[in-house]
């Protein structure tokens, strides 16, 4: 494997505290090494550029059945964003739900080396893995969804943490999953009966368990299993005006629980796309709707064991897709466009709706403002992750634009000034009061070190210290001379000049020259199945599932040809 030395760049690395210092970064045998160890290295000239570790995306959707439903119901999404094949690079297509190839190339151009598929229905794990296998370059993992799972709800009703944990360990093993995702706890199952759970205390019909019990129980099971990632929550009442109280009540479920793992992870609860959960008011009308980001952030800033990601609205036409079926149903009745909902037997459900966040409307710009406010009010940037919940709040290739808005007050004000209801948004949200501009160091925390430690991967990703994975990205942005124009930020973060992934040169002078050797990460929890769970699983498969247990397991050889297994022993 070739050695590389990245010379003369402005290195930004929150873990070692290096902040825009000119220094060299060397990669040997796929790992970062001290620059003095690279003797026969090929030189990459990074002068006048920013050098960072590979980015880590802990919440986006690029593989799995609902992504594919998005592709199926939106052939028009492929009208734009086509890029012809070139050299080793395969053809790219799609805008909001890109093809598998494009997903990998877009992430690579943005300098991302790891991406988490944030919702995998266990029954469709095979499909999810097949798509992940086809996404080039980027290492990936997938989080199976548990928040509406019949087994989980029945064990948690009786507060059986051991059985819950045992079931989770089994499911992670058979689906080759990475951690615990929890979407609209109880509410998606309630939707099967035409109902929903709007607060953490609304009981799930026919199960006699509350969302609060599910959230708390899954956190406890997660820490019981000592998993690398914390419990990953999409709480109830997503997108509903006035939902911030539900959000804070859900976050409070983590109070008093301490992280228990060998991965250096401190948080026990990650709340995803918090932007959709920080609304005040009673309707979407400009005289009622208001931002409650400050109130939510006051709580988040005081809780050391919680992290979140933004779910930043990017004001684009996109495709929303979530395991929150009831939300998608409501959304389809707001915009009267096409809609698909699916139920995944015993386990979860999902919905898909195309959506336009138009800068000409009040509500879309208010949502845009709330996302940015959350990040700009945060005290510890390691606990804030930059996402668009891609493609829900915006396509994945808009991350650089979000970075621009975070780093430049001018860019934010320009947008508000050009928006029809900009003043109304300043009036109903906090955005107008904030003059904070994030630094490159803080962006690196939000996209690298923070996300890596939340996933329990800080020993591999998120830093350039020796021993880490050889993921190094060179962005064409000069922090000394390019600060005059915010557009330069957006361009740079979307067009990496060089990108080393696991020691391989993927992008050379802006051109993709390799499809890399991507790995799929999964967590093998050694916890044995309890007798109860073993009997329940076998009985349920016979009685309720349309497939047998033999047709359920994801076999590594075909579905996960290049696995990276994290072995975990529970306490």
């Amino acid at each position, binding site marked *: 494997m070739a050695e590389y030395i990245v010379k003369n760049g402005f290195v930004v690395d929150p873990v070692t505290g290096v902040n825009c210092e000119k220094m060299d970064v060397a990669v040997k045998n796929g790992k970062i090494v001290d620059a003095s160890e690279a003797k026969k290295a090929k030189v990459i000239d990074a002068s006048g550029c920013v050098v960072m570790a590979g980015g880590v995306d802990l919440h986006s959707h690029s593989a799995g059945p609902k992504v594919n439903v998005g592709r199926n*119901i*939106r*052939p*028009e*999404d492929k*009208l734009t964003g086509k890029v*012809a094949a070139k050299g080793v690079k395969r*053809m790219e297509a799609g805008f909001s739900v890109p093809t598998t190839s494009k997903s990998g190339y877009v992430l690579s151009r943005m300098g991302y080396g790891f991406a988490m598929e944030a919702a995998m229905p266990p029954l469709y794990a095979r499909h999810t893995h097949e798509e992940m296998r086809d996404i080039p370059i980027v290492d990936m993992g997938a989080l199976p969804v548990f928040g509406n799972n019949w087994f989980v709800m029945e064990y948690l009703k009786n507060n059986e943490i051991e059985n819950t944990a045992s079931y989770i360990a089994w499911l992670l093993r058979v689906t080759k999953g990475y951690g615990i995702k929890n979407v609209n706890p109880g509410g998606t199952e309630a939707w099967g009966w035409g109902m929903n759970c709007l607060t953490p205390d609304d009981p799930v019909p026919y199960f006699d368990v509350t969302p609060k019990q599910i959230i708390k129980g899954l956190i406890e099971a997660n820490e019981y299993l000592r998993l690398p990632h914390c419990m990953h929550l999409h709480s109830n009442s997503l997108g509903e005006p006035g939902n911030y109280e539900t959000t804070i009540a859900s976050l409070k479920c983590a109070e008093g629980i301490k992280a228990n793992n060998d991965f250096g992870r401190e948080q026990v609860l990650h709340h995803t796309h918090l932007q959709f959960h920080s609304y005040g008011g009673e309707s979407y009308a400009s005289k009622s709707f208001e931002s409650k980001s400050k109130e939510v952030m006051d709580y988040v800033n005081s809780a050391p064991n919680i992290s979140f990601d933004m779910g930043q609205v990017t004001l684009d036409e996109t495709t929303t897709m979530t395991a929150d079926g009831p939300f998608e149903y409501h959304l389809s009745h707001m915009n*009267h466009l*096409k809609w698909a909902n699916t139920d995944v037997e015993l386990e979860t459900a999902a919905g898909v709706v195309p959506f336009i966040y138009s800068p000409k409307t009040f509500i879309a710009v208010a949502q845009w403002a709330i996302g940015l406010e959350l990040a700009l009010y945060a005290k510890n940037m390691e606990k804030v992750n930059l996402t668009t919940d891609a493609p829900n709040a915006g396509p994945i290739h808009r991350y650089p634009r979000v970075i621009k808005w975070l780093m430049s007050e001018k860019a934010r004000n320009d947008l508000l000034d050009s928006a029809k209801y900009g003043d109304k948004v300043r009036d109903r949200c906090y955005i107008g009061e904030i003059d904070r501009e994030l630094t490159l160091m803080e962006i690196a925390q939000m996209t690298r070190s923070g996300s890596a430690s939340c996933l329990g991967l800080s020993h591999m990703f998120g830093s350039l210290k020796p021993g880490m994975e050889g993921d190094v990205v060179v962005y064409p942005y000069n922090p000394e001379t390019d600060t005059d124009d915010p557009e330069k930020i957006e361009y740079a973060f979307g067009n990496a000049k060089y990108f080393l992934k696991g020691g391989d040169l993927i992008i050379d002078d802006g051109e993709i020259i390799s499809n890399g050797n991507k790995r799929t990460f999964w967590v093998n929890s050694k916890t044995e199945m309890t007798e109860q769970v073993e009997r329940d699983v076998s009985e349920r498969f016979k009685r309720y599932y349309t497939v047998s247990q033999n047709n359920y397991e994801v076999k590594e050889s075909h579905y996960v040809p290049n696995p990276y297994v994290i072995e975990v022993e529970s306490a």
Partner: protein
Amino acid sequence: MNTVVLTISKQPELYLETENITPDVFAGKSAEEIAALNVYEGNLTHTLGEYFTVAGGAGDTAADTRIEVKGDLTRVKWIGAKMTTGEVVIEGDSDMYTGAFMEGGKLLAKGNVGHFAGLGMKGGDLHVTGNAGNYLGAAYRGDWRGMMSGVLRVDGNAGSDIGTFMRGGEIIVGGDVDVHVGTHQEGGKIVVKGNGKSKIGGQMVKGDIYIFGSIDVMMPGFAYRENVDLEVDGVKATFEHYIGDLGERHGKSKGETIYGHLYKKL
């Protein structure tokens, strides 16, 4: 106005995708530069010059450029697609997507065009002297934003699914049409001088459809209102006026419910 003449010299083995044949792309280019433009056959990239002889030269601007395409173009797609100004004349039959997503200028097809002609058209003037295929002036597959503006005139017959999701502009068909006319129509005007078949105006919520000839099967969602005297595309006649599609959601304007209008010539 400067003219570029393209004459097909070699038939492609597969079909040729020629999104580059527009005044916008040709403007300011010499014959050699035009011949070097990319065309696609399957997943392979070729040059225009491999399939066409190029004579003449383009004007400095697209508005000042006229393109004549000659020969058997039945395996050539996307001629004049996305053009915004200038003129294109096709002398012969062309394949799919002729004038698709056109935004302005004039496109005259002297012959037949394939399916999806004038797809998602946003403006300009597209005139076909022969017949057109299916999906004339329709929305792209899956899209809910169909033809917005412009005039699409076919002297001969057209196929099925014309004007799907149409929102504005005019489609005039001189001859007969097949099933599905103005499905989901939300504006604009469709005139059929010949006969229609079934499913005319299905799910339409706004806009007008005029049928001069017969309608095989009327949609059940349409209700007869009255007979009216109208002048449509230069023809004065009495029409039966229907509103619909009553099975759909209809908006209101100034207290009046908005319907789609279907006129059948007596």
